[in-house]
């Protein structure tokens, strides 16, 4: 059976309207949640997490990122971090802890109504580097700093 152009267009328009209606019905305020990507948060090594996050794309060290972390954290359960950047068109900010069982702590997706700035608190299992990766204008930039942990954040 051949599928005529007229029939195709008719079906495409009808199903298109249906999809729009369904989305409109579902998207009531307070129910719109970003997807949670399970593979970003699977346990493993930092390199593997970065590969899953950015598909092996080049990440350049950047002086345009300011990373504000303590040099020594007395309590690994609460390590304050501030990330700010002078890069333009920042799309997302990821924060990773090198030696945590799950390296990715969080990834923030920004918009034109948010400054490239994030302040949060991390758990750190042991002394290691904290890395931030910023996606700006389809390029990846990163900064890192070591934090010495004197009491572990994972019951250690």
């Amino acid at each position, binding site marked *: 059976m051949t599928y005529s152009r007229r029939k195709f267009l008719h079906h495409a328009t009808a199903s298109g309207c249906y999809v729009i209606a369904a989305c409109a019905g579902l998207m009531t305020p307070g129910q719109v949640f970003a997807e949670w990507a399970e593979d*970003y948060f699977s346990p493993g090594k930092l390199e593997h997490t970065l590969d899953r996050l950015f598909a092996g794309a080049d990440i350049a060290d950047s002086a345009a990122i300011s990373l504000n972390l303590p040099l020594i954290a007395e309590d690994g359960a609460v390590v304050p971090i501030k990330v700010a950047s002078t890069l333009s068109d920042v799309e997302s900010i990821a924060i990773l802890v090198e030696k945590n*069982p799950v390296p990715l*702590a*969080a990834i*923030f997706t920004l918009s034109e*109504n948010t*400054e490239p700035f994030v302040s*949060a608190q*991390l758990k750190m299992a042991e002394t290691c580097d904290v890395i931030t990766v910023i996606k700006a204008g389809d390029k990846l930039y990163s900064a890192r700093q070591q934090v010495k942990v004197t009491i572990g954040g994972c*019951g250690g």
Partner: protein
Amino acid sequence: MTKTKIRLNAKNGKTELKILIAHPMEHGRNRDPETQELIPAHFIKTLTVSQNGKTILSAQMAGSISKNPYFAFWLKGIANGDLIRVDWLDNQGLSGSAEQRLAEPS
């Protein structure tokens, strides 16, 4: 059990948003000190910030964020009277939210 608090602070045309959520943020590898049983994972997975119903920031996270998470962001293009709302959802299906309108700077 969980409480969500937010505070808006307009400064020099930008708006600081501070978020404090009462949440255990258990990553699932801690043991109960008495029974030695694993404490089930219980952490916030997604957090969104919206301005008048439009999402302006979204975050994905897991158990490496500290217990009772605190976040601060700087928003721009927020006008007086705009409604800022924060929503979160955790891995056990619990959710929470808080909202506040930006008031005239005093």
